[in-house]
């Protein structure tokens, strides 16, 4: 039974922690540490597909498909019908990160990012000095950001050639993301901080300090805002105008006496969903002093994934013990 009377939904338990959740239109796809991939859609029973042997470490949407990377060394493409295609296999090496802009797609294993272009069967290997922490394409698909120790490398494609420029900043950079307009790139760090760059002039800025490591980031709202976990509130950095968050503070919403472990934007309403270390999930508008609505009460288990269908009709919550809650917004 759902823990909150406002919620009326379906609960499922996987055999391992929920790792990731992605939205494909009205379908939500969830991965977990047991190698299974689950599909949830309105008015249909959930579907379960077995894909990887062991943990699915990463997932990205590629139009109507999902790309996944696993500890079994395989890089897979999975259709919404559960058809699995192996794109590449790296043997005993993990596939840590995957990304797609809908046309190009990429994965990383160790220090190398591999990029596939639509007209070529073989990937282009892009090497780095240390293991890749994160991958992201920009919306135009002509740039790939790769986070690693010592900074972020921006690879720019001209024809079939990729050329690099390195944005250096001391420390290990884990995940990385482009702002929706492609003008900024932001990484999460091993330290409790984010680091950002404006690509027009490489001006950089730190967004810190946080009380905990930032494990989850999402673009949300109308500014747009980069919303992050890692504090007792959802921290929302505005990326409006040419300066982005430089010289501005964040808007902090959904504050509680717990650390936010997972964030997700809520479509259309300038809203954000924040999942906490104790399992609570709240919805708030991104504006100062807005009241947050509790969607699910505390369960005692850390929220590890949140996803919303494109129309905002349904929400999925996954946690560190493999509990999945799928419900209709009232």
């Amino acid at each position: 039974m759902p823990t909150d009377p406002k919620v009326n939904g379906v609960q499922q338990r996987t055999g391992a922690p929920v790792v990731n959740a992605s939205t494909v239109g009205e379908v939500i796809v969830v991965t977990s540490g047991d190698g299974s991939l689950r599909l949830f859609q309105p008015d249909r029973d959930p579907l379960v597909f077995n894909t990887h042997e062991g943990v699915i470490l990463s997932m990205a949407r590629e139009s109507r498909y999902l790309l996944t990377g696993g500890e079994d060394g395989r890089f897979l493409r999975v259709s919404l019908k559960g058809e699995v295609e192996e794109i590449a296999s790296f043997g005993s090496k993990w596939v840590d990160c995957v990304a797609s802009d809908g046309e190009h797609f990429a994965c990383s294993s160790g220090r190398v990012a591999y990029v596939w272009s639509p007209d070529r069967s073989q990937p282009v290997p892009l090497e780095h000095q240390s293991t890749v922490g994160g991958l992201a394409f920009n919306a135009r698909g002509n740039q790939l950001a790769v986070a690693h120790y010592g900074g972020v490398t921006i690879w720019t494609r001209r024809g079939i050639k990729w050329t690099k420029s390195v944005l250096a900043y001391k420390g290990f950079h884990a995940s990385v993301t482009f702002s929706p307009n492609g003008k900024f790139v932001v990484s999460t760090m091993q330290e409790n901080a984010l680091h950002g760059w404006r690509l027009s002039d490489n001006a950089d800025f730190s967004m810190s300090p946080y009380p905990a490591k930032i494990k989850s980031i999402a673009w949300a709202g109308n500014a747009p805002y980069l919303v992050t976990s890692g504090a007792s509130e959802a921290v929302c950095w505005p990326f409006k105008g040419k300066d982005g968050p430089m010289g501005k503070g964040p808007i902090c919403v959904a504050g509680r006496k717990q650390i936010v472990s997972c964030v997700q934007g809520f479509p259309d309403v300038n809203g954000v969903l924040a999942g906490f270390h104790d399992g609570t999930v709240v919805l708030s508008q991104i504006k100062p002093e807005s009241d947050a609505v509790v969607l699910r009460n505390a369960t005692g288990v850390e929220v590890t994934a949140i996803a919303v269908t494109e129309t905002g009709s349904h929400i999925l919550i996954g946690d560190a013990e493999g509990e999945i809650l799928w419900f209709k917004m009232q």
Partner: protein
Amino acid sequence: MNAQVPVTVLTGFLGAGKTTLLNRILTEQHGRRFAVIVNEFGEEGIDNDLVVDVDEEVFEMNNGCICCTVRGDLIRILSGLMKRADKLDAIIVETTGLADPAPVAQTFFVDQEVADRTALDAIVTMADAVHLELQLDDHHEAEEQIAFADVILLNKTDLVDPAILDRVEARIKKINPYAKIRRTTRCDLPLDEILGLDAFSLDRITEFEPDFLESDHDHEHDDDISSISLASETALDYDKFERWFSTLLRTQGQNILRSKGILDFQGMDKRYVFQGVHMLMDGAPMGDWPEGGQRTSKIVFIGRDLESMRLQEGFDACKVA
């Protein structure tokens, strides 16, 4: 929440027998679920489903502390392993022959997620009885691996005269008098003497008391790693100690490899227990003093150039006036 998975760090020079020990752990029927993290450039490949190959990556933290380094690959791999469906009973991390054990240990102090889900169990160092003396002369890494160890397996003892064996053991004790030394021929000892020791838990520090005060201060030359232990039957002042100790770790942390202590602070009912690796330390009030018995504060340092740090003087100044 799930209990923390214990992580054993296995160090030792090339040829000391790490691979033999790992193969034993991987093939023996012990009914426990292990994951073994090995370096992909190790001496010989180990082909087994339980093995995860990594490329050792030592990362400096961007926190202004030059000796605060962590193993970036471990943070990534441990976080991945914790997502598995099957809960592991133990994780074993093999380091390369020349690796400094500090970044591995520091990873467990620095990364909160690693610290929440896993616990550093012990540092086990394999030493080759035939070659250790030479290695100690030639490589400071060999000395560090001995200095960091909780358990030292003195292996290949069948290839060395008993007299030489005693000399090697004495040399080990001079560097690190607090490690347990186990003599083996082909890594043949029960696995529970190297796994599940809980050597880094504050709880267990109080259990190695018997050896705690046996130490000598012999020095051959300044580069040598040695140990110093200090004791006081007078209670200590918490504020004074905090000031002295944090300054000490900040300024001398690079030369202090490990530190441990059980302290009697005035006004505190419980024993204050701590342990540190270089500049990082973890401490908490833990367990009662024996009723009616003498409360003796004890502290031990293993490191280089300890004599110059005026440890006795600093420690004495923390006593309640």
